[in-house]
């Protein structure tokens, strides 16, 4: 029998899981030049749904945990080839042109169009995985050889028993893009085009549209959207912008020795400072965690 035993019920584990899930928010931002267009992003994610189960084989199973990308704000910078109309000669003479039509050029800037797209909450991916809890004795690298345990505590670099998630398997599904995203993108492009050409006189706007054909198609072509907007967006977010990598990295950090889910100081202070009196600390030995299908049990001994 261990000197200390602490058991946490599966119900309590679920409560903790739900709390962690509901309070998880991560975000990042950046920009990139992807050749024909540029993109900047402000991307974050939160977690929804999913469940946790303690397994009789000693593992903990997390099922169908949704990663909801929110916020997900993309701003595309699109450079449309310059197009000039007019400037042709209305009244030619043997000595040159007496009267020319006015020349109007559009899409001279770079980029010509800034296309904001707010897709917050419309794109998800799903995580499932099984893991074990691993204990590790951590000596803080900030602790010097001459420090006593109390010096280390005072300096905020005490030794610790850490508890980490050790993955057995981990599955992160590709991005799941809501059907409405295509419509949102088309509508955003329409809005931008209307605003972009709004300053032109009606005849010039009609002429440009006649020359270019549906400008929406042009922008889609520049963005290389193709027929399948889901595939395009998935590729853009997942591969070009590395959104999936962002999530995988954060999740993997918790599964890869980077962030312990819990830690206990060693020696553990059972009484704190009392005025000038030093804290009373007891060494913890043989720390271990066992999981059954009903509870998670932590056991430890007190060192001499």
């Amino acid at each position, binding site marked *: *029998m*261990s*000197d*200390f*035993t*602490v*058991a*946490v*019920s599966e*119900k*309590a584990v679920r*409560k*903790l899981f739900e*709390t*962690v899930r509901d*309070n*998880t928010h991560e975000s990042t931002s950046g920009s990139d030049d992807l050749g024909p267009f540029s993109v900047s992003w402000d991307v974050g994610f939160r977690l929804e749904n999913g469940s946790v189960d303690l397994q009789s084989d000693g593992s903990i199973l997390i099922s169908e945990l949704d990663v909801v990308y929110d916020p997900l704000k993309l701003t595309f910078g699109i450079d449309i080839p310059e197009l000039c109309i007019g400037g042709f000669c209305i009244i030619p003479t043997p000595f040159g042109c007496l009267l020319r039509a006015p020349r109007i050029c559009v899409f001279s800037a770079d980029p010509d169009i800034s296309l904001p797209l707010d897709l917050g909450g419309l794109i998800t991916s799903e995580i499932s995985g099984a893991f074990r809890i691993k204990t590790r004795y951590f000596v803080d690298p900030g602790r010097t050889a001459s420090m*006593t*345990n*109390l010096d280390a505590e005072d300096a905020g670099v005490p030794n610790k028993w850490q508890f980490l998630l050790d993955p057995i398997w981990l599955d992160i599904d590709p991005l799941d893009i809501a059907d409405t995203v295509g419509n949102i993108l088309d509508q955003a492009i329409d809005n931008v085009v209307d605003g972009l050409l709004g300053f032109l006189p009606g005849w010039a706007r009609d002429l440009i549209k006649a020359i270019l054909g549906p400008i929406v198609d042009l922008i889609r072509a520049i963005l290389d959207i193709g027929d399948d907007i889901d595939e395009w967006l998935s590729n853009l977010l997942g591969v070009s912008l590395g959104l999936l990598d962002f999530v995988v990295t954060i999740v993997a950090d918790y599964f890869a020795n980077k*962030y312990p*889910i*819990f830690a206990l100081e060693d020696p553990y202070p*059972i*009484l704190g400072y009392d005025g*000038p*009196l*030093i*804290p*009373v*600390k*007891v060494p913890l030995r043989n720390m271990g965690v066992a999981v*059954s299908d*009903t*509870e998670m*049990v932590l056991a430890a*001994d*007190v*060192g*001499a």
Partner: protein
Amino acid sequence: MAFTDNCDVFGSVHEDGLNRIVRHLMAQRPSLFNYATRMFAAAPERLCEPIKPHPEVVRRGNPLITVEDPLPIPGTDGLLGMDFCFQIAELVVDFHPGNQFSLPPELDPPLQWQRMALHLRVCGGIACPSPRVSDRYGDVIANLQKGLPAGAATHDNRPAATNEGQRPPITTIPSEERDCFCLDVFAVAHFELVGPDDSKKLAIRLDGLEIVDIRPEGLENSLECYIATTLRVGILPRLRIALDTLVYELGAFATISISPTPISASVPNNPAIENDLVKVFVNIGVA
């Protein structure tokens, strides 16, 4: 049966682990177990039992001893006293069923259900002045009292303050010798959760105490009363564990607070003492 069938979190401590904790406590906070006058504090080698402090206690200049006033000598109007020391040299805890030591008959062995036994080795001593030195101080007191005007003594028979609000300190009679004794003290106790619901503390309550082999019975009873009162009033209250301090930060995500699981048919004792363990059943809140 799982540990947590009737609670969110179960915790237990085995008596062997607790006894190691007690030894750490005695080494790292010796002033909780050693009481003496200033003379002993300045010369701890004269104590009845040597103290073995943790090196950090020495390095940080922590006191080995809680300094107490000298033992007053009756009839000296509170002017004179004697140096003394009182030490808990050893403390062993035994949770039901008793198997670490045998209880004396006065405590109705075997150890009762849901109870723990304590074995303390208590040592004490008085720095006893030689008769020659005592006589000399007696002469001084006699001369002093002759010179005191009527009514100079206060209601508690000590001389009036030389300055308002101040009394002369007790002078200890110097001594080269000290007489020591050690007693085996046995006690039976239990755990209780005390305090309001939102700040429960785990406290030790003393049920009975017995000193072995002291005669006459009146002296034994008086000493038992003194030691039991010292434990109840002076030591055990300082060892209470506040459950509301057992609050954990779950990373940046949440704060976990714990509260004792209410007593019920499925949790008849909380804390419970059984199978050489003290067990605590708690529920958690997450905020």
